[in-house]
């Protein structure tokens, strides 16, 4: 019983790690490879989650949809919707440099969150959408979790391979060139605004997919899930800690932060009961402290971005 319980918990964490890894990968394309400071991850996460929810949930009164479509269509829809939202935002905001872009994207994410929270006809506002189907959700608890883990893990694996391939391709080198020296890249004849828009849209689509996987896992999505703290800044912490510019680092960062966050509660629960409530705040502090330490002692992250020529890079990654 004990081991089954632990295994269940491990599977649950693995599912969450896979979902957040998609967000982190998306951010890595934007920040790690292209240098776009997107502080509106929650917005794209939300668009993906709600699009898939509306597409796949059974018909409901008082809001758009549900269209009861198969789940994969919902997921594709989530990516398309997040990309479509990213396009005009990118068009407008990407002309800003780093910190201005951050402010603009925070604003956009807040707009999206407030629209979702307020528009009954679209998202059932504050109450959220329920009855979202989970693939293999009818199986018993353990099997249903395992099946979902298999799905999200394969989605993550495919996404990882595709991003890796794209980054290793000339496109990836061009993006890094734009990131490191925009003027030089422009002088080489690269269409900088267009390329940055591309990266912004790709990354956002991945974030949308992460949102969709999240909504289907919980069979429900409410505006509480798209709080900037948990859907934007947490992802940033994960990426910076893992190592921006390195996809494996992005995924490792997610795993480390999530495991420490979740497991720290088990540790703090061992404190005497008087402190049980207070101890919960320690966890938030722990994450902050961890970020500080990493930034101080290992600013390039746990797995830094590989440097150098192509040959050296593949040598290093072995």
């Amino acid at each position: 019983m004990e081991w089954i319980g632990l295994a269940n918990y491990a599977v649950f964490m693995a599912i969450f790690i896979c979902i957040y890894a998609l967000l982190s990968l998306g951010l890595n394309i934007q920040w790690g490879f292209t240098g776009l400071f997107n502080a509106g991850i929650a917005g794209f996460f939300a668009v993906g989650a709600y699009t898939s929810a509306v597409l796949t949930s059974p018909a409901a009164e008082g809001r758009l949809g549900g269209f009861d479509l198969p789940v994969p269509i919902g997921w594709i829809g989530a990516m398309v919707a997040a990309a479509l939202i990213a396009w005009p935002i990118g068009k407008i905001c990407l002309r800003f440099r780093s910190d201005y872009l951050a402010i603009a994207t925070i604003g956009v994410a807040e707009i999206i969150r407030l629209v979702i929270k307020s528009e009954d006809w679209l998202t059932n506002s504050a109450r959220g959408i329920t009855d979202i189907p989970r693939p293999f959700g009818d199986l018993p608890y353990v099997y249903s979790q395992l099946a979902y883990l298999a799905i999200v893990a394969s989605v993550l694996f495919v996404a990882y391979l595709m991003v890796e391939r794209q980054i290793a391709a000339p496109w990836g080198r061009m993006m890094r060139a734009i990131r490191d020296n925009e003027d030089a890249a422009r002088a080489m004849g690269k269409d900088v605004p267009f390329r940055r828009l591309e990266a912004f849209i790709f990354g956002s689509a991945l974030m949308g997919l992460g949102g969709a996987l999240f909504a289907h896992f919980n069979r429900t999505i409410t505006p509480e899930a798209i709080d900037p703290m948990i859907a934007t800044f947490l992802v940033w912490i994960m990426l910076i800690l893992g190592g921006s510019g390195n996809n494996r680092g992005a995924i490792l960062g997610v795993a480390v932060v999530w495991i420490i966050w979740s497991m720290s509660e088990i540790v703090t629960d061992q404190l005497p009961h008087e402190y049980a409530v207070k101890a919960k705040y320690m966890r938030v502090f722990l994450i902050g402290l961890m970020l500080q330490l990493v930034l101080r002692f290992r600013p390039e992250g746990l797995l830094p971005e590989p440097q150098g020529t192509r040959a050296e890079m593949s040598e290093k990654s072995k």
Partner: protein
Amino acid sequence: MNKFRTALAATLLGATAMAAPAQADVKIGLLGGVSGPIAAMAPAMIDSARLAVQQVNDNGGILDGEKLVAVIGDSACNPQNGTDAATKAVNIENVVGIVGPHCSGSVLAAANSVTIPAGVTIISPSGTSPEISGLNDNDTVFRTVPSDDFQGRALARTLLLRDTAKVAVAYLNNDYGKGLAESFRDEFEGNGGEIAGFAAHEGEKASYRSNLAELASGGADTLVIFDYGDGSGLTMLRQALENGFFTNFVGGDGMKSDAPIKELGAENLTTFLSSAPVGEKSDSLEMFGKAFAEIGGDPAAIFATTSYDAAFMLALAIEKAGGDKAKVSASLREISNGEGEPIRAGEWAKAKELIAAGTAIDYKGAAGDHNFDDKGDVPGTYALFKVSGDNFEVVTEIQ
């Protein structure tokens, strides 16, 4: 890097070692929004639930004199942490039942992805969203707080009875405020009342003057506020009074807080009414109040009574079910269905004897009778309060 790996492995191992519980204890989970937006409310709720656990242990323990242990989890008022905390409670701590989570979004997510598949009964003391009623839950999701639907409707009928036929409504834009506001509007307009302004506002802003001016332009002199009295509701009330936008004010249970009286003064709140749930058997409420005050709690804290009742009922149900996780939800219905020997707050020894003897019992809680309907919801009993001195005083019961 290697050092880091070692540290991580040590953490994992440590957690595994510590997760092995002493088998003699019966564990229940208390999941609450300890961090996050309701961090100010959560400690009182958790303390009152722990009071129930303590009473059980002081009066003979659970089952064969075993100890009831409350495992506290932080659901942080969001689905991510809610499911995480529920997974830990169910799988690592092996709880028999759960009190919580606190916020509706956490309840929906934790129930859907963890507790319903795992067959663990949960009782939320504060998840008020009507969506929770509709969960396909195999009868494992209950709550001791009425759905927002009940209170909004009851308040609307009462105001109409008191000849207030034209009001403006301001509500906090979350599931709580919105649920109340919509059911209120539905009932108010359905019975011939006129809503002269209806608007959501976001919490924790410095000024609501423009919102208030907009609402006042409809010509109503009564403002109904569905918000929290120690948060943006207070700001709104203050600014409405300062600028004379409205003369009469009515609040939901969230507004029945000490903060407005302390901050604005009772003399300025003569036209302020607030609805809030009241215990039907007031002696049960008194018994809880006395016990909770003794351990330093504030019995009037919002959702303290519902949290206490949830924990106490869960303990009763576990006792009745003989500790069998699968039978807890059925037992929960048996211990509080309106028939049997009444058990009031804190009467654990008496209840334990009766259960052992096979006598039917009926829990009459601090927050109400808690006779669950077929969706696991409870109807509420409410009263309309006015400010009197430094406190609230019942004006009339509302149905």
